[in-house]
């Protein structure tokens, strides 16, 4: 069965292609459109998936949208009308979008892809998430917990999954009680973009103490039985999926963070020698972040225990945007009632496009498969860059520093290329690493990565300042070969079951100085445990780097500029090289090196 799964209209729109019951590609629209979190119908991504699979739209048995738009519409309408007459503006602006393609998704997809409307089907939002997580886990049976902002009405669901059957959702929490919206509201209150910069809230939390848990629990009430509810007066939930806070929230927590506060966060440093005294101006903010994080974890633990009671099994699959909170995931892995846990590498709406296709095929009685790998994206066309290099002025590739010259190295032998990259990394250079199919989800996993020596703090600081241009309080991650996991990490064996940066793990004390650039102030890292079978080239690079330096891991962060999605094509990579202070760009057999 050939099925195209589609997610769109909230954030991270994605198209995923199933050919003969096997998922073969998954591409986020943002990677092609270069608009971060692009929510528009992913037509560019759909075309790219079809081209990858060698299919035309006429070859598809079904196009499956990841949620039920009419049901979602009732939620948006009800939440807007509940605010009558204050919501006139929201109603008008919201309905303009809904009366276009958002409500009439069947027609929009049928017209855009040129398929008969009868071939457009729908899956429920949480069933899409749950199916993606379960099928990818490879488990025979599991409990499934989906926690996100909101789908149609459902914000949280607990389900039972068995191999070869559609996932059965046993219990749901419904809008407006949502852990995703709760966390997003605080993210906005702390001065970050809600539904986008939740990772900043999580990073900030490590600098604080959870001293304000009692206050936070007044707005997120947790019951003994694992259920929860939001204080209705504290959250402004009338907007379509965009949680904000109310005057009542401000009365409880004070004025929201302003530009000056956000600037002050810049004084916090993930690379500081130890957690030093936080300034009195910042203490309430970091403590609030820590408290919000702590309450979220408690809520998730409650839900896990509830899931364990409902579904007596030792395995849990976790999905939904909240599953991107790697600190919470590691606490669930440590303290939760399940022996084994699986979180897909793209647990958010991108993964739900894959889940929609899988769920539809399961309903049709098919036996579905999905590679247990996050590398379902597009292959870069290296030839585009090879061709144009002969005609480019090197000055255009040194726009930032303007002083350096750019040298082009071509390798006929891959080992030499790997040796060259390892050598430059050892010298403290920042290397952009582009290799074969892109990873799905928000984490760079060695196919679209920025790499650096984790022990060279001067390099790491330059990476943050001149390439990533991101706040110093946000930590970087480490990539290490699976054979090094237990030697580098406490809980290394457990971390190996979630190898794609889905959780955090403490780094052994003795290794912290040489890995400091990839270790947060709390002594943890978000590790990628590299399997030699799945990523032989990246594993060989780690080997070469260790052989040169004795350091068993590389600092690995996403290959993108601030505000941009992960680099996808070879031209994107060259663009980033030209616009930032990158030292080396590795593109297959080609390396561009900037010398100063």
């Amino acid at each position, binding site marked *: 069965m050939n099925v195209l799964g589609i997610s769109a209209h909230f954030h991270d729109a994605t198209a995923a292609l199933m050919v003969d019951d096997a998922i073969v590609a998954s591409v986020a629209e943002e990677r092609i459109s270069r608009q971060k979190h692009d929510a528009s119908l992913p037509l560019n991504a759909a075309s790219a998936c079809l081209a990858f699979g060698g299919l035309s739209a006429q070859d598809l048995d079904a196009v499956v949208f990841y949620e039920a738009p009419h049901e979602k519409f009732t939620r948006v309408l*009800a939440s807007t*009308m509940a605010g*009558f007459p204050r919501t006139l503006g929201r109603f008008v602006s919201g309905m303009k979008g809904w009366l276009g393609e958002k409500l009439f998704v069947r027609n929009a997809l049928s017209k855009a892809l040129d398929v008969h409307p009868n071939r457009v089907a729908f899956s429920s939002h949480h069933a899409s998430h749950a199916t993606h997580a379960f099928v990818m886990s490879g488990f025979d049976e599991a409990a499934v917990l989906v926690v996100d902002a909101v789908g149609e009405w459902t914000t949280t669901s607990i389900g039972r999954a068995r191999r070869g059957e559609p996932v059965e959702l046993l219990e749901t929490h419904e809008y*407006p009680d949502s852990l995703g919206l709760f966390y997003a509201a605080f993210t906005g209150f702390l001065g970050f973009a809600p539904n986008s910069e939740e990772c900043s809230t999580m990073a900030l939390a490590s600098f604080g103490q959870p001293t304000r848990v009692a206050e936070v629990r007044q707005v997120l009430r947790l019951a003994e039985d694992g259920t929860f509810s939001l204080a209705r007066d504290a959250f402004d939930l009338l907007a379509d999926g965009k949680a904000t806070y109310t005057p009542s929230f401000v009365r409880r927590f004070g004025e929201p963070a302003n530009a000056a506060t956000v600037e002050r966060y810049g004084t916090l440093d993930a690379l500081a020698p130890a957690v030093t005294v936080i300034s009195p101006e910042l203490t309430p903010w970091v403590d609030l972040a820590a408290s919000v994080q702590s309450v979220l974890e408690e809520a998730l633990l409650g839900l896990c225990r509830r899931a364990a009671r409902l579904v007596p099994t030792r395995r849990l699959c976790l999905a939904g945007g909240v599953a991107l909170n790697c600190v919470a995931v590691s606490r669930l892995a440590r303290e939760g009632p399940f022996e084994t846990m699986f979180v897909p590498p793209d647990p958010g709406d991108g993964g739900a496009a894959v889940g929609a296709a899988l769920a539809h095929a399961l309903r049709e009685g098919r036996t579905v498969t999905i590679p247990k790998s996050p590398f379902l994206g597009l292959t870069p066309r290296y030839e585009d860059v090879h*061709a*144009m290099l002969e*005609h480019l002025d090197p000055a255009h590739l040194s726009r930032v520093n303007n002083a350096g010259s750019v040298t082009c190295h071509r390798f*006929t032998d891959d080992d030499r290329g790997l040796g060259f990259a390892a050598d430059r990394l050892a010298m403290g250079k920042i290397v952009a690493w582009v290799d074969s199919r892109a990873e799905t989800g928000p984490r760079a996993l060695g196919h679209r990565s920025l790499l650096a020596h984790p022990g060279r703090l001067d390099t790491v600081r330059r990476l943050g300042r001149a390439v990533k241009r991101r706040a110093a309080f946000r930590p970087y991650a480490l990539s290490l070969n699976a054979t090094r996991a237990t030697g580098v990490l406490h809980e290394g064996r457990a971390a190996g079951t979630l190898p794609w940066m889905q959780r955090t793990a403490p780094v052994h004390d003795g290794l912290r100085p040489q890995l400091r650039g990839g270790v947060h102030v709390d002594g943890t890292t978000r590790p990628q445990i590299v399997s030699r079978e799945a990523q032989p080239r990246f594993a060989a690079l780690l080997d070469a780097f260790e052989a040169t330096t004795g350091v068993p891991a590389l600092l690995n962060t996403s290959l993108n500029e601030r505000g941009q999605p992960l680099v996808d094509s070879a031209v994107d990579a060259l663009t980033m090289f030209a616009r930032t202070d990158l030292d080396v760009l590795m593109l297959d057999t080609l390396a561009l090196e900037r010398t100063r």
Partner: protein
Amino acid sequence: METHAYHLSHVVAIGARPRLANGVRGGYPRGVYVALRRWAIRVVMPVMWRLWPRRRAHALAEFAATEADSGWQFKQAIERTPDPALKALLFCNLLEEMEHSERFQRLADGMGQGRVGVAPARRTSLATDTSSLRAFIAYVHAGELDISHEFDAYGRAAGVPAISGTFEALREDEEGHQSGLWSALRKLTRSDSEARSLVRRARWRRLYRSWLSVSKQLGDAMLALWLGLAYLLMGPLAVWSSRARMRSGHAAEQP
């Protein structure tokens, strides 16, 4: 390992003053439209920006989005042309458009005292295949001329040195793009008359698109009016049931 430093073999005239020598000029309705737009920018914009300073930041953010889209279009074209020299030219344009976008966004954020964003529009590539590449270049060439005129008008109307200076600097870049693209178009068509004909068609296409955009804005205004009316009529009937639904929350229900 083969190593070499590479140098420019095909000189790209980025930043050079334009010759504006495509020969497609003269009186036609587009000229009236462009003149009207420039007049509106010079007369209406300063008043609006003074009355609603937030609109100024928003307008700059829209310029940032437009420039980013322009860069994206160049990227699509790079992937669709087999000509390496043209790829290189388009790549240089792509870099400049991205830089413009960043400069506008910085200005917008500065004026708005924080991140000012606009809703992203769907990206639709103008160059869909190799055969449409010439039409694409003609279209962008025509667009760059309009943009350089508009930047000139905005620069004069802005009234803030930082904004005026940016518009002026970027106008020169856009004129450079225009010149480079005209050369590329001539090279692709191998005939001045065909190149001119493509540019003429592109200008009519742009005019038609402008008309569609104005029509859409009018349609949106009408729709907003009707929706407002529907809200006021429907609201009193729906408000109580909606509030009850919001209060209930339906925690942990069995479906």
